[in-house]
């Protein structure tokens, strides 16, 4: 019996101790009518050897194409040490550190994580992770509405330069509590928030403005102006940021005169594998004054009976297991192991390493954009500064070109023509530090062929 240690004599003596005649008798409180006959739809069990072979074969089917995809999930180098340590049984198979004395490893690690991510974002306090970047945006909107001292508004502005999937998650999550998301279009030259359109909201009672930096197109927003404008208009400001970019870019805590109020983002770039979309982790930092409105677990440093330093979960009165229906969120299990990986990643990279990753990604993307945009029928959609993504516009169907590239073993980017039809046949490309000049050349040459194979529209 896989994973069940009982021998026949164990079963016999245990039943005797219980005073039951059979294992089945232990289910005697369950109405007979409800009992399951069998699970014919489930295949018979496989040995580890068989499943190992099956999974290896399926993995081989998927292959390892050269990818220039980004759009919220980024391929970065992950030091071997990160997962070698993260998958140690003591992290991997531990429970939430409710028993602090038996969980100092996890707790201290979270404390160290909170320190790093707070500093990276320029904020004062952090929680111990949320599900992912999308759900973090939703939680931030809910939190802003809850934390806003002067407004009871349920309206939050979330411009189209924010990742469309984040907007969807925010809508499907926070919409249930009556939050209303207002949209602002993007301005077409630099691909950033249309400030004029935003200003139309001046004077209205709105809880918060969400600003993504770099935005979904990879372009850099004028964060100081936006932040100050929103604060003056009485809104809180929620920043959505790529943590890698913060090695180079101004941290949300310093945006505008006062810095943002809540900062969230997708933690995946910090040592978490792409893995078809998860598990990743959402991060959230805020000002100290809002800490009691924050969802999720928080670790604090304290002392033990003998005065020694120790770590424990704190401010639990915000959480569902204490406050139940009045908690700041229903989140319980979070993405602890991914945060562990990120903490080790940030420790290995350090400020210098992370800056090098950011700079190299920036440089490679600029190299990529130059190499691709000179091809016939290709142009760069937006001018102005960007980080490690860019939108290119084609004179023929993006989808068909991407399919052609796939045949060369290349995933050429994300087709934006569905989410942003207003941009035409637009393609979002990304190059991180993992791409070499040779890779870029290979892409450009394959694209040359693909463009020939697909007729211009």
């Amino acid at each position, binding site marked *: 019996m896989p994973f069940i240690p009982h021998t026949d004599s164990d079963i016999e003596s245990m039943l005797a101790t219980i005073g039951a005649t059979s294992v089945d008798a232990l289910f005697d409180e369950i109405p007979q009518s409800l009992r399951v006959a069998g699970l014919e739809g489930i295949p018979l069990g496989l040995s580890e050897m068989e499943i190992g072979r099956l*999974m290896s074969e399926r993995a081989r089917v998927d292959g390892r194409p050269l990818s220039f995809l980004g759009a919220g999930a980024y391929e970065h180098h992950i030091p071997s040490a990160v997962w070698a340590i993260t998958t140690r049984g003591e992290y991997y198979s531990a429970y939430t550190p409710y028993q602090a004395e038996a969980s100092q490893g996890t707790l201290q690690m979270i404390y160290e994580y909170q320190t790093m991510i707070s500093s990276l974002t320029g904020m004062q306090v952090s929680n111990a992770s949320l599900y992912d970047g999308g759900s973090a945006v939703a939680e931030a909107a809910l939190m802003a509405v809850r934390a806003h001292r002067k407004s009871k508004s349920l309206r939050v502005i979330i411009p189209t330069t924010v990742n469309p999937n984040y907007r969807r998650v925010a809508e499907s999550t926070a919409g249930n509590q009556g939050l209303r998301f207002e949209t602002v279009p993007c301005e077409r030259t630099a691909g950033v928030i249309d400030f004029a359109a935003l200003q139309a909201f001046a004077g209205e009672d709105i809880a918060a403005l969400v600003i993504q930096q770099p935005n979904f197109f990879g372009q850099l927003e004028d964060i100081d102006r936006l932040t100050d404008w929103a604060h003056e208009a009485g809104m809180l400001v929620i920043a959505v940021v790529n943590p890698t970019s913060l090695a180079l870019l101004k941290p949300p805590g310093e945006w505008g005169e006062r810095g943002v109020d809540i900062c969230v983002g997708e933690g995946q770039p910090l040592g978490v594998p792409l893995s078809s979309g998860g*598990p990743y982790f959402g991060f959230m930092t805020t000002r100290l004054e809002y*800490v009691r409105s924050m969802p999720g677990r928080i670790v604090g440093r304290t002392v*033990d009976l003998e005065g020694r330093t120790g770590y424990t979960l704190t401010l639990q009165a915000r959480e569902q297991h204490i406050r139940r229906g009045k908690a700041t969120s229903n989140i319980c299990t979070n993405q602890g192991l991914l945060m562990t990986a990120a903490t080790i990643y940030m420790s*290995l990279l350090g400020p210098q390493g992370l800056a090098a990753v950011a700079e190299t990604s920036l440089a490679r993307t600029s190299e990529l954009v130059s190499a691709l945009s000179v091809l016939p029928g290709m142009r760069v959609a937006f001018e102005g500064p960007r980080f490690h993504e860019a939108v290119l516009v084609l004179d023929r169907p993006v989808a068909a070109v991407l399919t052609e590239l796939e045949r060369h073993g290349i995933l050429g980017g994300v087709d934006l023509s569905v989410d942003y039809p207003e941009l035409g046949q637009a393609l979002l490309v990304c190059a991180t530090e993992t791409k070499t000049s040779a890779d870029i050349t290979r892409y450009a040459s394959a694209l040359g062929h693909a463009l020939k194979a697909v007729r211009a529209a």
Partner: protein
Amino acid sequence: MNQILEKTIFEYSRPGRVAAAQCPPAADAALVASAKATIPQALQRRDAPLLPQASELDVVRHFTRLSQLNFSIDTNFYPLGSCTMKYNPKACNQYAMLPEFLGRHPLAPASQGQGFLSCMYELQEMLKEVTGMKAVSLNPMAGAHGEFAGVAMIRAYHRSRGDLARNEIIVPEAAHGTNPATATMCGCIVKEIPVDAEGDVDLDALAKVLGPNTAGIMLTNPSTLGVFERKIEQVAKMVHEAGGLLYYDGANLNAILGKVRPGDMGFDVIHMNLHKTFSTPHGGGGPGAGAVGVSARLEPFLPVPVVSREGDHYRWLSEADRPLSIGRLSAFMGNAGVLLRAYVYMRMLGREGMSRVGEFATLNANYLLARLQAAGFDLAYPTRRASHEFIITLKRQAKELNVTAMDVAKRLLDYGFHAPTTYFPLLVPECLLIEPTETESKETLDAFVEAMVAILAEAETDAEKVKGAPYTMPVRRLDDVRAAKQLDLTWKPVDSAA
């Protein structure tokens, strides 16, 4: 356990130190400079973030040593009620971490992911079968997230029928905190109802709260009291007749796997904690996965994406295919890597292994119950069968010996056992909710009983000893009050002497 306390990683840091092998190879300096020059000064960072400047060895050593300060399934028995801390097979991790799976981008086309998608599709199918539901979505990233999806679907269902008033969610008082919290997250009003002396739902109280505003009821069965809700069919009938739907909190699915199916009990929607029943790791707090299953009438509302098979080809269904969907709960598709682990686990168990889970989880719980009862511990529901878990109450000891459930829990750590769940459910005073799971051997259970007996003896002869526990952990009991009052949530450079 490493008795030498470990300083923080920041105290290993020295200006200019760097784990050089981890820095990307220097790109052409001119290229970098010109790319950086495109970014206005005002958008650039001025001061470096407070990340450690440490060597690779220091980082490895620090986090390895830290890990040794933890209890974990791989090192300790963890009879945590409601949490299902069972063995996490190493194979699940190894095969979910094959380079091709790890490297696959979430937006890679389905044509570059048929291997992965076939696993997801089969996982959906298997989850349908074990739960008796008609359709499954794998998106939610934890139990509470699945609850959210479930209640949101219930609301969407009523709304789609124009039944707009239904915004009340009924939960038993013993429910897990995420149940009421979820109802609130979904903009619903929570109605708590009591349970009777034997732990079943109080039907009179239920009848009273049911009405035209009833959206639904959230139950787990067996309940968090560790007993099977015997009147479940009646409850289902009453709620359905009142126009409400039934939500099944799958946290306790381990108890009944292969024995009874929520779908057959009358539930309309269910979440499954794959990190409990299907043995994906808890990871010191996550990640989990909270797949949801629904009856046919809720299928259109399932969160997207969902994998479909068309001939030999697998693809994601999205908003376009499911216009009534409650939408997207994750930027991509949820915790794919966790789902792969659950898939591997389910395939290893297979049809026959699946029912054994419920059987042996129940056998272990009832055995532990019998032995602890014989050893003088009081049961919260002495007339009932244990399901996969059961509750003992230390009310008597608290009164007579001044030793609380918390004291016993802390003392257990000294004996090498993680404490059971304490003070949950809240309605049982001084309770320990004990769930051994099916993967623990009789010898381990016996050793746990011995420890409990020893602690009881200590409580009788030397209560202070128990109250002062733990003694052998890296730290003694921690000052939680101070932690909450004198908030110290991030390390600051001046601390370095601390």
